[in-house]
C-alpha cells in the first residue's frame, strides 16, 4: 500500500483520510488472525465478550473502538493470551487462530506465541535498564549473546521506531530518562526488535501529548508495511487516521466491522452512528 500521509497532515483533524486509503483495497490481504465466534469470561460465569467473529489481515491496521468496558482491550489481550495471567479467566467458546493455528491448543507454547505477537501497552513502561538493553531484551531472553547481532537489531529497531536519531549518542543512558513519547517509541522498538508478525497496541497514545501522538501515529502507518497491527483507541480521529479497518464494540459484542472510511462515513448500524457522532460513550 502506498501511504503518503505526513506528520503535518495529522494535525489537521478535519481532513478526511486520503483517497488512496479510503478506497477499498484491490488486493485482499492474507488473513493473519481469525477470531471465530469467541466468548470470553474473567470468572467463568459472566461472559464479557460474546460471539465475536473477526478477521485481521496482513499489513493492515485494524482499530478497535467502543466505549469503556466494551471488551476491546480484553479481546486484544486474548490474542497473545495475556489474560492467562489472570486466574480463572479464559475463552468460554470459539477459538482464535493465528496463521492458521489455534492459540489455545495444548501444544501451543504461550512464550513462543508472544514472541510472534508483540504488544504495546497504554502506559509506557521501559524496563529500568539502559536504552540499548531495553531494545535488546527480547533477543537476550531468546538466548542471543552475539554482540554484532544485538547491535544491528537495536539499531534497526530504533530506526524503525523513529528514535535512533534522538538516542544514538546515549544508548547507555537509562530508558527512564526519556520523554513520554520517546519512552513509548522505545517500547515499540523493544517490541519490533524480536520481529513479531503482529503488534497489538492497547491505547498507545492515551498518555501522550498531541505532538508525541502524531509521531506515534506516523510510526504506525509506517510499521504496517512490515507488521499486522491491531490498535485499541478511544480517539476516533486517531482511528480514522491510522486504521484500514475498524471494529466497533459495544457491551461485549461486535456491533460493526468494516473499512474505516465506510464505518465513519456511512455506518450501517444505528449504535455505531450514535457513538461516532458523540451521542454516547
Amino acid at each position: 500500500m502506498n501511504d503518503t500521509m505526513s506528520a503535518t497532515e495529522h494535525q489537521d483533524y478535519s481532513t478526511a483520510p486520503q483517497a488512496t486509503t479510503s478506497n477499498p483495497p484491490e488486493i485482499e490481504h492474507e488473513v493473519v488472525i481469525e477470531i471465530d465466534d469467541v466468548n470470553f469470561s474473567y470468572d467463568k460465569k459472566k461472559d464479557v465478550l460474546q460471539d465475536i467473529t473477526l478477521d485481521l489481515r496482513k499489513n493492515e491496521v485494524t482499530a478497535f473502538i467502543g466505549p469503556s468496558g466494551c471488551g476491546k482491550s480484553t479481546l486484544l489481550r486474548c490474542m497473545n493470551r495475556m489474560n492467562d495471567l489472570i486466574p480463572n479467566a479464559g475463552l468460554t467458546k470459539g477459538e482464535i487462530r493465528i496463521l492458521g493455528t489455534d492459540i489455545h491448543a495444548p501444544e501451543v507454547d504461550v512464550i513462543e506465541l508472544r514472541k510472534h505477537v508483540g504488544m504495546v501497552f497504554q502506559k509506557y513502561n521501559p524496563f529500568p535498564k539502559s536504552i540499548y538493553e531495553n531494545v535488546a531484551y527480547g533477543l537476550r531472553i531468546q538466548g542471543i549473546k552475539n554482540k554484532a547481532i544485538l547491535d544491528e537489531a537495536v539499531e534497526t529497531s530504533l530506526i524503525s521506531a523513529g528514535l535512533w536519531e534522538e538516542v544514538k549518542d546515549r544508548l547507555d543512558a537509562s530508558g527512564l530518562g526519556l520523554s513520554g513519547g520517546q519512552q513509548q517509541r522505545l517500547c515499540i522498538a523493544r517490541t519490533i526488535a524480536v520481529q513479531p508478525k503482529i503488534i497489538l497496541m492497547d491505547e498507545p497514545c492515551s498518555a501522550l501529548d498531541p505532538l508525541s501522538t502524531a509521531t506515534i501515529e506516523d510510526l504506525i502507518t509506517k510499521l504496517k508495511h512490515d507488521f499486522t497491527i491491531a490498535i485499541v483507541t478511544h480517539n476516533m480521529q486517531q482511528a480514522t487516521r491510522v486504521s484500514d479497518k475498524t471494529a466497533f464494540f459495544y457491551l461485549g459484542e461486535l456491533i460493526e466491522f468494516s473499512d474505516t472510511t465506510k464505518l465513519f462515513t456511512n455506518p450501517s448500524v444505528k449504535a455505531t452512528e450514535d457513538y461516532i457522532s458523540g451521542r454516547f460513550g
Partner: protein
Amino acid sequence: MSDQPQADEPIKFRRKGFKFLGLGLQEYIKYFFGGNASLAIIVLVLICTFLLKEGIAFFPDYNKELREYRQTGQEFVDYADRQIDAHTRINSDANIAYYAELNQSSKFEDDILSAYRSVGSFVRSATSSETDQLKRYTERIEDLEDNLAKLAEAPATDEIDGRAQIQQLAVELDDYQQRSEKLKGEILTHFRLHLANESIWENVRPGIHLSKESKELVLTAVLHKQPGVKEEYPEIKQLMADSSAKKKVATESLAEFKSTITALSKAVRPMKSFVRDLKDIASENAREAKKFSTAELRYDALLKGSEKAATESDKQRFIEQAGAVDRTKPNFEEITKPLIAKTDEHNKLSVELQKEIARLVPLLPKNPATESARENLQKVQGNAANFPNIAEESREEMMDWNFDKKNSVFHALGAFFFGKHWISNSSWRDFYGILPLFTGSLLIALIALAVAVPFSLAAAIYVNQLASRREQNFIKPAIEFIGAIPSVVLGFFGILVLGTALRNVSQIEALSWIPGFPMAERLTILNAGLLLAFMAVPTIFTLAEDALNNVPQALSENSFAMGASKLQTILRVVFPASISGIIAAVLLGFGRIVGETMVVLLVAGNKIKIPDFTEGIGVVTQPAHTMTGIIAQELGEVDKGSLHWGALFMVGLVLFFMSLVINFSAQRILKKLQKF
C-alpha cells in the same frame, strides 16, 4: 445573621480557648511531639560523646603502657624469645609426625583400646554413686570378716557372750553381703542400659571408626570390667599386649627419627634457660616501673589523708608514711643494661641453634608412611628453611633496640588496630590488639551473609512471585516469626543441637575431603555464622519481599508480552528493578549480624586468636572471639578507668563506626543505583 457584630464594634481576630504562658494548646501539643523527637537525638549525641570520651583516652594510656613495655626491656626480651617460638613450632610439628608414624603400626589396637577406655569411663562415671556405695559395702564386709576372724581366734572369756557376738556379726555380714550382691546386680543392669544406647559412641574420640565386631568387643569388655573386677577382659589384655609389642617394634625401627627429635628439642635448651634469665630481669624491671607509676598516686593519697586526719598524731603518721614512699624514678638505662650486655651471648646461642637445626632437620625421614606425618614434616622443612630469616630479624631488632626510643602518637593507634594479640591480666604485659576480634567478627559475618542472602532472597522471590496465596499466608508469618526467637535461646540451640550435629556430620568419612573436616570443636566460626544467618533471614526476607512487591505489575506484564518466561521475567526485570531495596535489605541484615552479641558469645568458641588462614576455607571450623562478644564478656570485670576498660570502649567505638560506614555506603550505593 441577627448576632452580627455591631458596626461600631471592631471585629477581633483573637484566638480563643486555652492559653498558658502565652502559648495555646496547639503549641503545647506541637512542642510535646517535638520534644520527644529531640530527646532521641539528645540521647544519641550523649552516647556518642560518652563513647568517645571513654574511648579516646585509651590511646595516650596505651602509648604509656607500650612505652613502659619498652623501657623495662620486656620488648627486648620478647624479640629474643621469638627464635624460641619458631623452634617450638618446628619441634612440635616434628613430634606430631613422629607419633603419627609410631601409632600407625598399632592403630587398629589403639583405636579399640581408646574406645574401650572412653566408653568404660563414661559408664563408670554414670554409675559412680552406686559404685561408691558398693565400695563402702565391701569395706564394711571386710571389716566384719576381720572382726569375726579375731573373735574366733581370741580365747573365749565369756563363752555365751562371745557366741552371741559372733552370731550378731554373722547376721550383719550376711545382710551386707546380700545388699552388696543386690547392688552389683543393679549396677550391671545400669551398665547394660547405658551400653545398649547408641549415643554411647559419642564419647569416643572423633576420627575413630570401629567395625561392628570391634564395637561388640568393646561392649563385652566394658560389661566384663564391672566394679570389683580387677582383671581386664582377655581379648582386651591381648590387644594391649599386641599394641605394646607393635609399638616396641615401631619404636625400634623409628629409633633414628626419635633421636633426631630429641636432639632437636635439646638444641634449644641453652637458649631457653638464657632467655628465662633475661625474662626474670625484665620482670623485675616491670615491677619497679609499676611501683613507680603507683607511688605518685599513693603519695598524693596519703597527703590528702593527712589533711583530713582527725588527730594530730594521725596526721603525723600519714605524713611520715607519705615521706616513706619511694618516689624515685627507676633509671631505665641502668636497669636494662644487663639485658643489652647479653646480646652477644644470645647471638652466639642463636648461631649454634641455627646450625643444629640445619644439621638435624635433613636427618628427618623423607618418606614417612602416614599422610599426617608427611604434612607435618613438610611444615617442618618449610619452617626450618625460614628459621635463619627469623633469627636474623630478631637479631636486628635486638641490635636496634633502645630503651628510650620514642613512640610516635600513632604507635598506640597501630598497636591497637593492627595488633595481633589481645592479652589481658597477664603477668608479663597486657596487649590490646583488635585484629583477632575483628577477623573473628568479620569471618562470622561473612559466613552469615553468604548463607542468609541467597536463602532469604530466594525465599522472598518465591513468596512474592511464585507462591500461591495460601503458601504466602503460611510462609511469610513463619519466617517473620524467626525474628521473635530470643537470641540467647538460639545460642542454646547452637551449642546443644547445631554444634553437635555439625561435628557429627564432619566426622562422616565420605565428607573428609571438605576442608576443615573433621571438626575438632563444636563451637566454631561456622556454627556461629550459621546461627547468625538464621537470625538475619527475617530482616533480609521481609525487606526484600517489600522491595519486590514495589515493582510495578506493568513491568512484568511488559516482559511477558515480549515472550519472556516467568523465570526470565523475575531474574531480568523484577529482580533488577528492585535491586536498590534488596541491597538495603542485605545491608540492614549485615548490620544486624555485626551487632549481634549473645549468639556469638555463646557459640563462637571465644578463643582470642587470629584464625589460622593456612587451612584455606577450612578456617571456619576454628573457634574465634568477636568484638561484640569481648565487650559483653569482659566489661563486667574490669576496673573503671583502667587501660583494659578503655580498650573495650575503643572496641565499642570501632563497632559504632563500622555501623556508620555500612549505613553510609548503603545510601551511596542506593543513590548510584537509582539512576536506572
